């Protein structure tokens, strides 16, 4: 439509007008000298969003631009008062090809040389991408997504933070780690860009001194980071807080937990058999991330327990492992159910070791309903649990009940609590049917001597 105006422009300013064409290099036919921008390099570097765009520049420095066809604007910018006199006054133009889905990251990979700084590795012709990642030691044992430049740039679009920003030192090697390295490992793990803020928050939580990520990685014990997510982000990115929330099948749950593990492996250098000295480990060390069921507004979420609001998106990290089920299909009174839960909680780590490990009690919705129907709030449950988790030292000291393992003799005449203050956390998740709650047992080095639950808002 604007071809005649372009001809007028070139005629009036011979040698001073460059016409860049994104799709058909023969357009406009009436003009000899055009610049073929089918590679989109010029368009990308000049942030063209709409075609046509008219840019005025003096000595290669842009002074003004107008987008689409707005006759009066074009006349003003070109100083040609009769430009396009036969054309409509206004046409909005079309979207630039640089704005098509999936193109932007490819253009950034080709034309934004300074964007990324990680070493690039070019594969040989016959190398299989996924096998190559295995051979280089980047995998936890499961296939990883090959971290191509385009995929990494796409991941980085999930945050406003600069790729070069250092998020912290990753244990065990304490290596400074950039946002870009986190993005590469999030790609390996299979994350979508929209999960990336959660991954970044999980890294920042893991790096809090209270969490003791270094020790958790090195320990001979079973534990690894367990992630519990609260807030609006759950629905925004599709984290599972319902059926099989702690199991397989949800991409966000599976890959967010995995990303932190891979980061610690690849950037931190924490590998099994190397610094990771776990006797057996546990399946949760591949990934262990789930969301809380926040559907009951009168039942405080874990994030609220940690001082945040319901509107906050928060990730909490707990050093834990495995699941110990609590079956209770008969209790209809809160006292009975709390006593049953307490009885199971005594088995955390060892029935005769108290104060050693923290725990997370995961209350299923049907059990939560038993408490709620009786008017209990979470604080009432916690109080009842602590009340039911006291033991006389004589029952649990070393040698008691014919078992050498147990608490030191000095506790013989004392009454001891199974969990330290702030050592028993309660969250809620799972499907609406089934009276099965669970315990996530903590690292045997819980508390100030080791790891404490940490939370990070994002």
């Amino acid at each position: 439509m604007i071809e005649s105006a372009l001809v007028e422009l070139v005629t009036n300013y011979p040698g001073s007008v460059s016409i860049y064409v994104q799709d058909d290099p023969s357009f406009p036919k009436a003009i000899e000298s055009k610049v073929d921008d089918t590679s989109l390099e010029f368009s990308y570097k000049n942030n063209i969003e709409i075609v046509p765009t008219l840019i005025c520049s003096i000595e290669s420095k842009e002074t003004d631009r107008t987008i689409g066809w707005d006759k009066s604007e074009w006349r003003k910018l070109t100083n040609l008062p009769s430009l396009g006199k036969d054309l409509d006054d206004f046409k909005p133009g079309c979207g630039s090809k640089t704005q098509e889905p999936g193109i932007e990251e490819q253009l950034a990979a080709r034309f934004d040389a300074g964007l990324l700084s990680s070493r690039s590795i070019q594969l040989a012709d016959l190398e299989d991408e996924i096998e190559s990642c295995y051979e280089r030691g980047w995998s936890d044992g499961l296939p990883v997504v090959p971290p191509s430049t385009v995929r990494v740039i796409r991941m980085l679009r999930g945050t406003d933070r600069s790729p070069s920003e250092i998020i912290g030192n990753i244990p065990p090697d304490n290596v400074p780690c950039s946002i870009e390295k986190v993005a590469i490992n999030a790609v390996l793990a299979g994350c979508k860009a929209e999960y990336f803020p959660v991954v970044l928050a999980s890294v920042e939580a893991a790096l809090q001194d209270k969490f003791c990520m270094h020790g958790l990685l090195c320990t001979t014990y079973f534990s690894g980071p367990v992630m519990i997510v609260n807030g609006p982000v759950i629905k925004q990115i599709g984290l599972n807080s319902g059926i099989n929330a702690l199991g397989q099948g949800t991409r966000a749950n599976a890959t967010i937990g995995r990303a932190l593990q891979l980061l610690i492996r690849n950037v931190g250098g924490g590998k099994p058999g190397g610094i990771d000295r776990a006797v057996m480990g546990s399946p949760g060390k591949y990934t262990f991330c789930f969301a809380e069921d926040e559907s009951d507004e009168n039942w405080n979420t874990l994030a609220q327990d940690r001082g945040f609001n319901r509107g906050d998106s928060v990730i909490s990290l707990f050093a834990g492992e495995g699941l110990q089920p609590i079956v209770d299909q008969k209790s209809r009174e809160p006292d009975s159910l709390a006593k049953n839960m307490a009885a199971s909680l005594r088995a955390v780590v060892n029935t005769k070791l108290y104060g050693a490990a923290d725990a997370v009690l995961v209350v299923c919705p049907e059990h939560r309903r038993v408490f709620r129907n009786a008017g209990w709030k979470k604080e009432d449950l916690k109080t009842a649990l602590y009340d039911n988790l006291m033991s006389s030292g004589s029952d649990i000291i070393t040698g008691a009940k014919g078992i050498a393992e147990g608490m030191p003799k000095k506790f013989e005449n004392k009454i001891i609590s199974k969990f330290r203050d702030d050592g028993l956390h309660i969250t809620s998740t799972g499907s609406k049917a089934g009276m099965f709650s669970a315990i996530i047992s903590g690292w045997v080095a819980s508390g100030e001597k080791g790891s404490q639950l940490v939370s990070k808002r994002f």
Partner: protein
Amino acid sequence: MSSTIMLDPTAELAPAERQILPRLDSLKDTTVGLLDISKPRGKEFLDEVEEYLLTLGAKVKRYRKPTFARVAPKELNQQISVECDAVIEGLAD
């Protein structure tokens, strides 16, 4: 070269090239496999190598590929990796 480029997810403390396995400090009390790839005179050559290795205190186990034309069967690779600390392959004529 392939057009596939990947970005290094590690701290880049090690070179990008794949690394050879750690070398043995000494041959004493180690088991060294000698793999004959089935080319002519391989046996005689490896007999000499075996004699020399024995003087260095190594134990020696002998293996043979069914044919030099193909890579060693997986079972043979696994057997050597289980039974030996190192392997020397009698390559070429």
